């Protein structure tokens, strides 16, 4: 039996996933969600410790495409529980983890909305409802979760081990149809299938792959070793308060500590190793990153191999801001060029924040303007290198389609204005004029009042095939 099989939650059953905090319960669940989404199975995600936007981000990082609202829906039992304003999302219903009624009503509501059976319900996690309600949680599991599962759906519920009485966990385990215990031992994650409606009890061992492990350091390559040590160091250093990082960002310099601490609560910390890609160009994303530690490069990959470097950013800088302003795919690829930690903020949260602080918006406009200026000058460079290739290509095409051979050479038989040609090449008339003069000086072509005669097509061909300069 494999992990992947285990992550498909069987129909009509409630699986309890128990383990100490940090053992990888949530990760297991996210994988189960991705599996469900991959087969178009409607999924309800009840979240008590994180915002739906945070979870969407994590799922996207793990490979979720643009979510279809009807497939993945959330019950946000986080915002209301901690007393935050709940951002309105079409795919989310709010509930309070202190009030089990609100959660069962939200589940019913979504169930009605989805309207078909075979729904996967992920409950991450039962811990806070348990801490708030104690005995009532068992009734909730029976009368809400087990009932929901029995209606032709599947439920996976998470519970932290060791946060209450041990007999309470046993009581929960007896209610559930299946129990999986997750623990970590050194570098190995242990999945202990205590009971399962579809499988025999078994143990699965998974080596943890998310850190640079000793295995990669086995070759005693000094650089790998250095990176290994450095990454350990960065992890320690990364315990910096997000608030401290926010305060050092020039963008937020005018904002009071109180308001910043409000903002910092909506941040998720993300860590990347050197060379990790934070997001790809053309990905869909709605996260804005502020670098707290490390360096990030923004680039546009080109088919020829060499990436076009747009910017190199360091701590205190931010990127991904375009995703905040429109809902379009990423305009560039962001790569960590050092072990990096960023503070990630969801589009909706940040837009809400901006509404209260026009000065931040103004400051951001300044930074954006600077970036656009940089891009413009780069663009100009690109154009001044590329157009003569494109001009050569355009002329060759015209020669092929409209050319006639004369004693002087190939004559393009249609009248062509300078601006018309510029439009075809995709450059400004001045550039085209300059390039035409250049070609003429080299004796490749001859132009006279909307007439173009190509003397040396083979030279033009050579120019057209040049990739650069």
């Amino acid at each position, binding site marked *: 039996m494999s992990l992947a099989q285990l992550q498909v939650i069987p129909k009509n059953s409630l699986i309890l996933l128990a383990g100490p905090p940090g053992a990888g319960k949530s990760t297991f669940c996210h994988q189960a969600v991705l599996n469900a989404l991959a087969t178009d199975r409607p999924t309800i995600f009840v979240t008590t410790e994180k915002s739906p936007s945070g979870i969407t981000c994590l799922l996207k990082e793990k490979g979720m495409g643009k979510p279809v609202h009807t497939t993945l829906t959330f019950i946000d039992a986080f915002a209301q529980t901690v007393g935050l304003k709940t951002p309105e999302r079409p795919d989310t219903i709010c509930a309070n983890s202190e*009030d089990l*009624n*609100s959660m*069962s*009503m939200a589940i019913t509501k979504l169930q009605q909305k989805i309207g078909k059976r075979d729904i996967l319900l992920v409950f991450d996690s039962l811990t806070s409802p348990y801490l708030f*309600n104690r005995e*009532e949680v068992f*009734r909730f599991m029976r*009368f*809400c979760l087990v009932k929901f599962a029995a209606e032709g759906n599947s439920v996976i519920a998470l519970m932290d081990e060791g946060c209450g009485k041990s007999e309470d966990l046993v009581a929960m385990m007896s209610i559930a149809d299946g129990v999986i215990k997750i623990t970590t031992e050194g570098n190995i994650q242990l999945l202990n299938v205590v009971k399962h409606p579809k499988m025999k009890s078994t143990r699965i061992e998974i080596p943890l792959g998310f850190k640079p492990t000793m295995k990669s350091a086995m070759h005693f390559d000094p650089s790998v070793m250095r990176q290994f040590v450095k990454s350990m160091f960065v992890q320690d250093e990364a315990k910096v308060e997000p608030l401290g990082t926010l305060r050092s960002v020039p963008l937020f310099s005018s904002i009071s500590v109180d308001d910043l601490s409000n903002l910092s609560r909506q941040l998720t910390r993300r860590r990347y190793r050197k060379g990790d890609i934070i997001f790809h160009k053309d990905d869909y994303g709605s996260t804005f990153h502020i670098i707290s530690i490390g360096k990030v490069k923004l680039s546009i990959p080109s088919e020829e191999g060499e990436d076009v470097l747009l910017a190199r950013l360091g701590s205190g800088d931010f990127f991904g801001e375009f995703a905040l302003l429109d809902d379009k795919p990423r305009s560039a690829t962001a790569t960590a060029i050092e072990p990096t930690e960023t503070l990630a903020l969801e589009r909706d949260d940040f837009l809400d924040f901006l509404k209260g602080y026009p000065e931040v918006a103004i400051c951001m406009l300044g930074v954006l303007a600077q970036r656009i200026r940089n891009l413009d000058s780069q663009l100009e460079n690109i154009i001044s290198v590329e157009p003569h290739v494109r001009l050569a290509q355009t002329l060759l095409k015209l020669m092929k389609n409209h050319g006639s051979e004369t004693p002087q050479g190939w004559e393009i038989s249609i009248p062509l204005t300078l601006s018309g040609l510029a439009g075809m090449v995709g450059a400004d008339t001045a550039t085209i004029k300059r390039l035409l003069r250049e070609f003429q000086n080299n004796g490749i072509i001859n132009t006279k009042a909307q007439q173009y005669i190509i003397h040396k097509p083979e030279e033009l061909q050579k120019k057209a095939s040049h990739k650069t300069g």
Partner: protein
Amino acid sequence: MIDMKFEYIPTGVPGMDKILGDKGIPKGHTILICGGPGSGKTTFAIQFLYKGVTEYHEPGLYITLDEDPEDIKNNMSKFGWNLEKLEKEKKLAFVNISPVRVVPSDKIGLIQLGMKEFKLVKLLEAIRKGIEEVQAQRVIIDPVTIFMLQYPDETERIHAMRDLITEFRKTGCTHLLISELRGTGLEREYQFEEYLSQGVILLRTFLKGDNLIRMCQVEKMRGLDVDTQPRPYKITNSGMEVYPDLTVFR
């Protein structure tokens, strides 16, 4: 148990009819709606009238002894219910008899004490007029408590209530009497109105931590096999909604 002579009218509150044996309220009965402050009694009543008009073609009459009809109309517009329009179309009538003072008239029933009986007469008169005006089939008295308060003597009060209910029955309309619930907790004493009316729907609230939990319970409903379990309900932005399949968690 179930008398097949009964006709039933849907309440218009999603989920509520399922609790009421998948039928609704027996037509012509007088039902008591008991609830604490903010439990949604008025919302329930107005929803009963509004849906009655818009979905079941039953005109309605709203008698208020407490709140100004204008306030009620304004408050209820947040649910998207345009009561003003229905009023203009003569499908809904609001009668405000809160400032009823001395109006000499005939006595009625057993009550003969000073001006109080005039109030009963006035109330019945208003109801009759209102019913005639829009051909009402659904009538709300909100709240009946105010009316009862003027009879300090318990026996007197019971008689007044009985008279009222007898008069209501003659009209053939379905009446909802709104009453304040004394004792909002889970343990409470029964109120005499509950014995007199033919059905009682309780809207109860209690605090769980910092959260208000709402539950709805049909305590009695003559002529119906009802679900007497408390069920959670919610006041959403489109009115009241009961979850008949859910258990209340305390």
